[in-house]
């Protein structure tokens, strides 16, 4: 039985003001937020289309997804703020040369990572084209926008360099975080809480969606083991299996593949253009 559907088909089947309940994974929220994500336009179009048909939409996710998303937002915000600081420092000296050089080191690391991502994508396309596959039709999931932002270890290196000579208190980095990160993180979290409800069997609001009172957490391990999917994705599928919510909105191949075997009563909703790829792999 096919338990996946494309965006276009899903929207076509919807009735005006029909109630829609969707479980989201972190990639969907990230793609919606990040204009550099290759699915940014696709996701925005989908939600724009959905909004035109019905306002009766409820979004759900897990607390793990929330953590994943806020971690991505932390890295993105710090990266953009550091790059801006570096740019301003060129015309008005604000930071020491030690900090400037450390930022340059990490920019080089990041740029190398981006270059490798692009090369990986180009190589993959060449391999497919050599096999006479028309890559203009295919949706290649190679490029990770994660490469655009400083890794945690790179942020740590910059943070360490902020310690100015003979200064006892770490006011520099603390001031930077206070202005550029703190309030934004709080506001962002608040908006995320408004956007999605976090499914938990302990919550009064969530209770009405649960089939059983208690979630069997060990089933997430079972799901992870069945197809080798990431554990946080396994937790999403496991959560979905314990609820009456039918549809999981995802951009992740692992979730569509895993859902075919481990969440057969659920519908995996994914971009229409991806379905062709999945049909090759999941013949049914």
């Amino acid at each position, binding site marked *: 039985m096919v338990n996946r559907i494309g965006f276009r088909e899903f929207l076509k089947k919807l009735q005006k003001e029909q109630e829609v309940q969707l479980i989201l994974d972190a990639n969907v929220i990230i793609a919606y937020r990040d204009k550099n994500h290759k699915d940014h336009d696709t996701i925005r179009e989908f*939600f724009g289309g959905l*909004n035109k048909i019905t*306002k009766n939409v409820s979004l759900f996710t897990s607390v793990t997804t929330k953590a994943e998303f806020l971690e991505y937002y932390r890295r993105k915000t710090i990266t953009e703020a550091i790059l801006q600081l570096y740019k*301003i420092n060129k015309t008005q*000296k604000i930071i020491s040369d*030690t900090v400037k050089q450390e930022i340059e080191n990490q920019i080089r690391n990041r740029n190398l990572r981006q270059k490798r991502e692009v090369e990986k994508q180009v190589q993959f396309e060449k391999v497919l084209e050599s096999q006479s596959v028309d890559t203009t039709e295919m949706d290649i999931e190679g490029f990770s926008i994660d490469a655009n932002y400083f890794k945690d270890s790179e942020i740590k290196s910059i943070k360490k360099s902020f310690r100015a000579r003979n200064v006892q208190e770490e006011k520099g980095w603390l*001031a930077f975080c206070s202005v550029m990160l703190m309030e934004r993180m709080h506001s962002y979290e608040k*908006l995320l809480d408004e956007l999605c409800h976090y499914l938990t069997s302990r919550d009064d609001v969530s209770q009405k969606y649960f089939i059983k009172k208690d979630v069997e957490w060990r089933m997430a391990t079972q799901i992870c083991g069945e197809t080798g999917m990431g554990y946080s994705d396994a937790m999403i599928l496991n959560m979905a299996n314990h609820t009456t919510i039918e549809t999981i909105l995802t951009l992740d191949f692992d979730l569509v593949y895993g859902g075919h075997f481990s969440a057969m009563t659920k519908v995996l909703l994914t971009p229409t253009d991806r379905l062709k790829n999945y049909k090759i792999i999941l013949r049914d």
Partner: protein
Amino acid sequence: MNRRSIIDIMEDMDRLEEIEITDELADTLRDYFKEEIESEDLENDENEKVAKGFDDSFINTDKGNAENGESDRV
């Protein structure tokens, strides 16, 4: 369950993504790094003087007369 539309919430999120280093933060950091920046500027000035000093040592070099096949005296 969601009273505001997804589109409206996302628009609020868009506003949060405008990153700007404030003048206040720039002043705080400049003040924080003041001693180190001054020390670095001093070091750079010294290095520049030393570099100029080496150049000066060649100013009095005797130039040989090329027409007579004489090379420069170092």
